[in-house]
């Protein structure tokens, strides 16, 4: 696998900010430019460094690590890539500190995160040990900062994970399964602390690079050497930072950890003293619960995408209902209405008293998303409010009647009448774009027979005409008309049967493929036809396996009702397809 680099573009130079082990072995260091790295190794893969994604991934990992201890801290005094776990008191649960370290290491290797772990009595010491483990793992002189550390107070645990995994995880599977051996995963007790810290480089104390360079200059290569110096000289010579870090590492000065905030679930619950057995009471409590939920959501700037409600009952499983919202919302009235629609059906009070009713209600929001506060322009407010109400109405209808029960018809370019429209999903992108690219405003332009051979506008013939002319022109001719046809105003019935109804038709003048209908039987009644306009010939889409040609007639019967009949040319059968009414 090619070495992976993370680069940051600084003034048109792509500077390497992190690299994998493989790249390190080939001599690529941080601070080089990408060009230099390419000169060393031609096949490197690089990705742009994304500190925000890094930070987000680190926080996610920190939350995940809450399974080992409730106190997980990030951002402890200039260690941007370390996670500190306070495992004080957690040994009882896991057996020992060594077990915690081992389990954490196993879990991280399962996540393919290469981390260095160390447990020590103070955060500073744990960090130093983890840092040093990272250093020795990579080799001398790499100068790379450890990325993770974790610590307890009485007993600290520290990690150092090396690749900037937030970005690396996005770009490639390039993680190195950590080899936790030797000093990696070391657990240091309070008594051993000075001895464990002594051989570590001063850089492990979380001091700045300049200070570390100055110490290096003076030949002070270990923390032990620094500690051995007269204590009062240190601030005078190196500033207050060095002494502070040493004291923090040794536990002389306490270093509190600021833990990550727990993400509390958005939920509200009410338990009644007795039984609530009236619908009004249920709704009132429900509005109250929704009010609580909304406060919680507003504090996070989020809107609910999914809500679960539980109505607790005696001796029976709770009545559950969940609703999904198409977009995040924290509008109390809207949420209440949605739920009213969803659970109104389910609530039945038998009126037995006593056992009947609910003993409590719980509302949870398992899925919520960022939902910006809406700003409404002063102009067009009415339109906007109407649109908003309509959206909510459609949401309510969909929840009660089912998703497929509310459709927006959309025209489709097709000559087959029943395929000339489709019920489209109310897709926002499509709604924004109007109609799709291959969808035209209904109806499509007719194509003359000479050109396409697909559809023919028959000459309108009436029955009397046929009677007076015993041998009508067998082929209906294309009728040139003005703009009315080209605008597509073809007579189409408002009432179209989903499936054409087979009917018996008397055809005039003779029962062949060219005659016009004279009477037909529908609903057990013989209907005599007064006018028959047509045929309008619609050829089938043979390429779709629909190869029947239909001749449509617009007929008026003696009762003055208008019907839309067609004859399948191939089979000579008649069908009723719709009514003009």
């Amino acid at each position: 696998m090619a070495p992976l680099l993370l680069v940051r573009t600084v003034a048109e130079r792509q500077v390497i900010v992190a690299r994998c082990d493989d790249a390190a072995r080939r001599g690529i260091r941080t601070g080089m430019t990408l060009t230099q790295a390419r000169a060393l190794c031609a096949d490197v893969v690089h990705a742009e460094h994304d500190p925000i994604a890094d930070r987000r991934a680190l926080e996610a990992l920190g939350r995940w690590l809450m399974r080992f201890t409730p106190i997980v801290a990030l951002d402890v005094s200039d260690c941007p890539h370390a996670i500190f776990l306070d495992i004080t008191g957690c040994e009882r649960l896991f057996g020992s500190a060594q077990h915690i370290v081992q389990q954490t290491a196993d879990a991280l290797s399962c996540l393919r995160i290469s981390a260095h772990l160390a447990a020590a009595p103070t955060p500073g010491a744990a960090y130093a040990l983890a840092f040093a483990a990272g250093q020795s793992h990579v080799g001398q002189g790499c100068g790379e900062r450890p990325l993770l550390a974790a610590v307890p107070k009485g007993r600290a645990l520290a990690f150092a994970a090396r690749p900037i995994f937030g970005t690396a995880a996005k770009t490639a599977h390039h993680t190195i399964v950590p080899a936790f051996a030797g000093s990696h995963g070391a657990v240091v007790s309070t008594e051993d602390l000075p001895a464990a810290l002594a051989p570590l480089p001063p850089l492990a104390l979380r001091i700045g690079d300049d200070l570390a360079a100055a110490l290096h200059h003076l030949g002070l290569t270990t923390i032990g050497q620094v500690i051995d110096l007269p204590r009062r000289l240190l601030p005078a010579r190196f500033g207050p930072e060095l002494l502070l870090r040493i004291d923090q590492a040794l536990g002389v000065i306490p270093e509190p950890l600021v833990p990550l905030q727990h993400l509390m679930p958005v939920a509200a619950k009410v338990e009644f003293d007795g039984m609530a057995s009236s619908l009004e009471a249920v709704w009132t409590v429900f509005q109250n619960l929704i009010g609580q939920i909304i406060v919680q959501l507003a504090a996070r700037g989020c809107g609910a995408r999914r809500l679960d409600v539980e109505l607790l009952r005696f001796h029976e499983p709770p009545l559950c209902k969940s609703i999904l919202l198409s977009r995040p919302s924290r509008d109390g009235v809207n949420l209440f209405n949605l739920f009213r629609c969803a659970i109104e059906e389910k609530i039945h009070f038998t009126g037995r008293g006593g056992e009947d009713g609910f003993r409590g209600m719980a509302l949870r929001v398992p899925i919520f998303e960022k939902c910006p506060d809406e700003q409404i322009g002063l102009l067009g407010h009415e339109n906007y409010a109407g649109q908003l109400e309509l959206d909510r109405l459609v949401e309510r209808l969909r929840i009660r009647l089912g998703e497929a029960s509310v459709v927006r018809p959309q025209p489709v370019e097709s000559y087959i009448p029943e395929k000339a429209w489709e019920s489209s999903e109310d897709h926002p992108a499509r709604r924004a774009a109007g109609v799709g690219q291959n969808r035209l405003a209904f109806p499509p332009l007719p194509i003359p027979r000479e050109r396409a051979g697909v559809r023919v506008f028959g000459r309108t013939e009436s029955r009397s005409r046929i009677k007076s002319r015993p041998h009508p022109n067998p082929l209906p001719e294309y009728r040139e008309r003005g703009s009315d046809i080209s605008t597509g105003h073809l007579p189409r019935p408002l009432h179209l049967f989903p499936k054409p109804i087979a009917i018996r038709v008397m055809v005039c003048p003779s029962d062949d493929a060219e005659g016009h209908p004279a009477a037909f039987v529908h609903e057990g009644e013989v209907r005599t036809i007064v006018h028959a306009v047509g045929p309008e010939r619609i050829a089938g889409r043979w390429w779709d396996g629909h190869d029947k040609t239909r001749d449509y007639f617009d007929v008026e019967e003696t009762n003055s009702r208008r019907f839309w009949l067609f004859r399948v040319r191939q089979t000579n059968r008649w069908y009723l397809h719709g009514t003009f009414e």
Partner: protein
Amino acid sequence: MRFISCHDGKLEVLGTQAFRAPAARAFTTGLDALDALAPGGGFARGAVHEILSAPEHGTPLFFAALLAAASGQGDEAEGRKFILWCDPTKEIYPPALANHGIALTHLFLVRPREPRDLLWSISEALRCKGVAAVVAAAPRLSRVAARRLQLSAERGGGVGLLLRRANSPDIGCYAAATRWLVRPAPGQRTVQRWSVQLIHGHGGCVGQTVFLELSRENHSVRALESLAHRPVETRPTTHPTMHPSQTPTIAQAS
């Protein structure tokens, strides 16, 4: 002179001008003869209008589409353009609605499965302020249900168009602003006709009939007070020599 209205069990004293004053928020269809019949010269918004028909005459979807399309137009619509059409049997053909002037982008088809859901859907839709018109074949209505629909419409400000069977047993239960009886009338080859009669509507020309003509050629609609001056359509069977194209059709005349 004072008018007393007895409607839905309530007695109400109306001012003398109450009938003729045009409704504050009414829409017109643009067909003068039809609008003239309606109370105040227009169809009230925030109200239910019923369209009755005999079962053997089919369902007058055309008249409903005409009113629904008109309800979404004009300044009084206040941006409400959307039309909800309850279609439980999936038999409405939207491209034909488009021909009748209803933009498909503003149309929702609602398909409730049970009569109870249908009634609920109509009521909810009428209560919404973004809806111009709700068209539905009404299920069996009780007096309370009819009144509830009317109240929903008053709250939302939209127009409810209920298609009802003239012979159903519950036809006496209504709370509609106007009721219209629609029957098909003899048409011509390219002209379809209906006779539309106002049978209820305070201040309207109750009992009067207009004829609506729909031209097949260009889907233009005309309203005529009577067909007397038109040549009566002759049955081709009785007059085989008479050619229909010799009779002046609407398209040619207009």
